[in-house]
C-alpha cells in the first residue's frame, strides 16, 4: 500500500475518535453548571426538590463525564502515535497549551469532581457546593486551552519557523489569539445548549408520562432560562465567528458557500443541487438570498468574498502547485447542518419559553415530543461544526505551514493503523451502546425515590497511623 493511504487511515481514525470525544465534552461543559445551579438553589432555599434534581441530573452528568475522560486520553496520545511529524513540527507551540491544560485545568476538574461525588457527607454543604463549581470551572478552563491549541492550527500566531520547526515567540499572542477566543465562546455556548436541551428533553419525557410534573417543571424552567438567550446568542456568535474564519481561512468560507468565483455583493445559497465541483460550478437548482453572504462573511452587505478559483490561483503562486481546495460538498453541507440546527434550537427554546409562561408546557404534548427529538440537534450541529472546521482546513494540518499529507507517523504502518482503527470503532460502538442504555435508564428514574446515599456515611476517626 502507499503512504497516502496511511495518511487517509490516520485521518479517518483521528476524525472518528475526535468527533466521538466531542459527543461527551459539550454535555460536560453545559450540564455541569446547570447541576451546580440546582445545588446552589437547594443550598440557598433548602427546598428538597432542588436537591433531588441535583442528584438526578448529577448522575447523568457523571455517566457522561466518565466516557469523556476515557476518550480524552486517546486524543492526547494520538498526536504522537499517528502524527509524529506534526508533533515534532508543532511541539514547541502546540504542546504548551496541552501541558498547561493538564496542570491547571484537568487536575482541577478530576480532583474536585472526586471530592463532589464522595463528599456529600464529608464536607460542609457550602464547601461541597464549592467543589462542584470548582470542577465546572476546571472543565471550562480545560476547553479554553484545548481551543487555544486547535486555533493555532487554524490561525497560527506568535511563532517563528526555525530549522523547519515552529517555535513559540509569544505566549501572550498564542493565548489571546482572536480566533481562539471566538472559538472558545462558540464552544462554551454550544456546551450550554447541550446541557439545557438534555435537561429540557428529559423533563419533557417525564411530562409526557405525567410523571413528577411539579419536579421537572423546575428543571425545565432552568433549562429554558439558559436555552433562550444562549441559543440566540449562539446565532450571533456563530455568525461573527464565521467572519473571523473568513479573514484567517478564506478558502474554508469559500468552500462552505460553494462560491467558485469572487463576488461583490454575494448572495447566500440556502439550498442547492449541484455546483460542488470545479467542472460543475453552477448549481442546477438553488435558493439564494441576495447580499446575505456578504454580510455574514464580512459584516457589510456590500462586502467582497473571494472565490475558490481565485484563492486556488493565489495559493498556488504562494505555495507551489497542488490542490488547495477542501471538499466543497462536505464544507457546504456541514455549514448548513450546523446553521440550520442552530436556528431550530433557538425556535424550540423560544416556543418552550412561551408555553412555559402560559403554563402550558406540561400539557403541550406535541412540544414535549419535539423537545425529546431536539436533544439530537446540538449533537448534529457540533459534529457538523467540527467537520467543517477540520475538513475545511485541508489540505493543511496547520494552516499555510504544514500539509496533512506530510504530517503523519512514518513508523506507523497501514497494518498497525488497520488494527487500531478497527479497535477504536469496536470499542467506541460498544461504549456508546452502553452509555445510551445507562443514560436512558437513569433519565427515566423517579427523582423522588428514596434518596440514595451517595458519598460515604459520616463516621470514624482519622485512621492514618504512622
Amino acid at each position: 500500500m502507499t503512504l497516502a493511504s496511511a495518511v487517509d487511515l490516520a485521518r479517518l481514525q483521528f476524525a472518528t475518535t475526535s468527533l466521538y470525544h466531542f459527543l461527551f465534552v459539550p454535555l460536560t461543559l453545559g450540564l455541569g453548571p446547570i447541576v451546580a445551579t440546582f445545588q446552589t438553589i437547594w443550598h440557598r432555599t433548602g427546598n428538597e426538590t432542588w436537591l433531588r434534581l441535583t442528584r438526578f441530573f448529577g448522575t447523568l452528568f457523571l455517566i457522561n463525564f466518565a466516557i469523556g475522560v476515557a476518550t480524552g486520553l486517546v486524543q492526547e496520545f494520538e498526536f504522537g502515535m499517528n502524527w509524529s511529524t506534526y508533533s515534532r513540527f508543532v511541539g514547541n507551540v502546540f504542546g504548551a497549551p496541552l501541558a498547561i491544560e493538564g496542570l491547571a485545568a484537568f487536575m482541577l476538574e478530576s480532583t474536585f469532581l472526586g471530592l463532589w461525588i464522595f463528599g456529600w457527607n464529608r464536607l460542609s454543604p457550602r464547601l461541597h457546593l464549592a467543589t462542584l463549581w470548582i470542577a465546572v470551572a476546571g472543565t471550562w478552563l480545560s476547553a479554553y486551552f484545548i481551543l487555544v491549541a486547535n486555533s493555532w492550527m487554524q490561525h497560527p500566531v506568535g511563532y517563528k519557523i526555525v530549522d523547519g520547526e515552529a517555535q513559540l515567540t509569544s505566549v501572550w499572542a498564542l493565548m489571546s489569539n482572536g480566533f481562539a477566543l471566538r472559538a472558545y465562546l462558540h464552544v462554551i455556548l454550544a456546551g450550554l445548549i447541550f446541557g439545557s436541551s438534555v435537561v429540557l428533553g428529559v423533563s419533557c419525557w417525564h411530562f409526557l408520562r405525567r410523571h413528577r410534573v411539579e419536579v421537572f417543571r423546575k428543571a425545565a424552567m432552568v433549562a429554558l432560562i439558559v436555552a433562550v438567550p444562549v441559543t440566540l446568542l449562539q446565532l450571533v456568535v456563530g455568525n461573527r465567528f464565521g467572519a473571523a474564519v473568513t479573514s484567517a481561512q478564506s478558502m474554508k468560507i469559500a468552500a462552505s458557500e460553494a462560491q467558485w468565483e469572487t463576488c461583490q455583493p454575494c448572495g447566500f445559497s440556502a439550498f442547492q443541487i449541484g455546483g460542488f465541483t470545479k467542472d460543475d460550478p453552477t448549481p442546477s437548482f438553488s435558493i439564494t438570498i441576495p447580499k446575505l453572504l456578504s454580510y455574514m462573511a464580512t459584516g457589510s452587505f456590500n462586502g467582497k468574498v473571494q472565490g475558490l478559483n481565485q484563492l486556488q490561483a493565489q495559493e498556488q503562486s504562494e505555495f507551489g502547485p497542488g490542490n488547495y481546495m477542501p471538499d466543497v460538498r462536505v464544507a457546504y453541507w456541514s455549514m448548513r447542518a450546523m446553521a440550520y440546527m442552530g436556528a431550530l434550537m433557538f425556535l424550540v427554546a423560544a416556543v418552550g419559553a412561551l408555553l412555559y409562561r402560559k403554563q402550558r408546557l406540561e400539557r403541550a404534548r406535541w412540544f414535549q415530543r419535539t423537545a425529546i427529538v431536539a436533544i439530537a440537534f446540538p449533537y448534529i450541529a457540533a459534529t457538523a461544526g467540527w467537520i467543517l472546521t477540520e475538513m475545511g482546513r485541508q489540505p493543511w494540518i496547520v494552516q499555510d505551514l504544514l500539509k496533512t499529507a506530510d504530517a503523519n507517523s512514518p513508523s506507523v504502518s497501514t497494518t498497525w493503523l488497520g488494527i487500531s482503527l478497527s479497535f477504536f470503532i469496536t470499542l467506541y460502538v460498544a461504549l456508546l451502546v452502553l452509555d445510551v442504555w445507562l443514560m436512558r435508564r437513569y433519565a427515566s428514574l423517579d427523582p423522588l425515590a428514596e434518596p440514595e446515599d451517595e458519598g460515604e456515611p459520616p463516621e470514624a476517626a482519622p485512621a492514618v497511623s504512622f
Partner: protein
Amino acid sequence: MDLQVLWFVLVAFFWSGYFLLEGFDFGVGMLLPFLPRDEAERSVMLRSIGPVWDGNEVWLVVAGAATFAAFPAWYAAMFSGFYIALLLVLFFLIIRVVSFEWRAKSTSRRWRTVWLWANAVGSYGASLIWGVGLSNLLYGVPLNGDGDFTGTFWDLFSPYTVLAGVAVVAIFAFHGATFLTLRTRGAFLGRASRAARILSFPAVVLGAAFLVTTVAVATNRNDKDLFPPVLPAAFGIAALVLAAILVDGRRGWAFAMTGLGAVLAVVTLFTSLYPRVMVSDPSFGNSLTVETASSAHYTLAVMSVVALITVPVVLLYQGWTYHVFRHRLGADEPEAEPAPTLATQPEV
C-alpha cells in the same frame, strides 16, 4: 539552571507522581477479584480509591503533555514507536475508567462482575505495559536518523523489559495492599494485611531484580557509570525491603515505603537514561538526548513558570483530598453509590 535538565527532571517527577498515586489504585484494582468476600467488601475497596483515582490518572496526562511540550522529538518517537503498546494501554485505561463510574449503575450480578474484571484487567495490563514501555527507553529500540522507530511491536519485548513490566505489577500490587491496610477496618483489614505480607515477597524479589538489572543495562547499553544510577536503585531496594519488614506493625510507614519504592523505580530509570531520553539500538548514535529532543528556550521558560505556579497548588489540593478521605472504611456500612431502586421506575 539549564531548563532542558529541569524539564527532564520534571518529566521524571510527573511519572514518579503517577507511579506513587495511580500505583496504589492500580494495586487495589488488581486485588479486586481476589480479596473481597462479598459485595460489601468489594464496595469498600472501590470506595477506598473512588474519590482519588481520577486525580491520580491526571499525572499521566501531565507526564505525556509535558513530554510533548518540552521534548517534542521524544514524544513523537516514543508515542509513534510504541504504537501497539500504547493502544493496549488505552484499551486498559478506558475500560478501567468506565468501570469506576458504571459498575454501580446496575444491580445485575453479571454487569457488576464484568466491570469488576474490567477494572482488574485494566490495572494489570496498564501497569505491565508501562513497565515494559518505560524500560524500553533505556534498553533501546531501533531508531533511524530522523528519530523514527523502525522496529516491530515484538522488539519491545526482551527479558529485561518483561522483567520490568512484571516488577511494576508486583510493586503496584504490594503498594495497593499497604494502601488498603490504611483505609479499611474490621475483618477486611485483617485480610488486606495478610495480602500485603504475601505480596511483599514478589515485590521485593522482582523489584530488586529489576533495579539491579536496570543499573546493569545502563552501564552496558547506555554508556553510564555505575554511579549515580546505583544510588536510587539501592535506596529503592532498601525501601521495598523496609516495607516488607514494617508491613505487620507500622502500616503508615509500610505504605510510605512501598510508595517510595515505586518512585525510586522511576528515578532509577531516569537517572540511568540521562542525558539520553530514548536510547537507540543498534545505532546508538541515533539516540535522542535531552539536548536534541527538547523545545527551544522560550517554550521551556514559559512552561517553567507555569509549572512553578501550578505544581505546588496541585500538590496542596490533592493532598487536601487525601486528608478529607482519610477515614477507615468498613464493610458494615451502606454502599457508596448504590443503584437507585427501579421499583418506582415508569414503563419505558
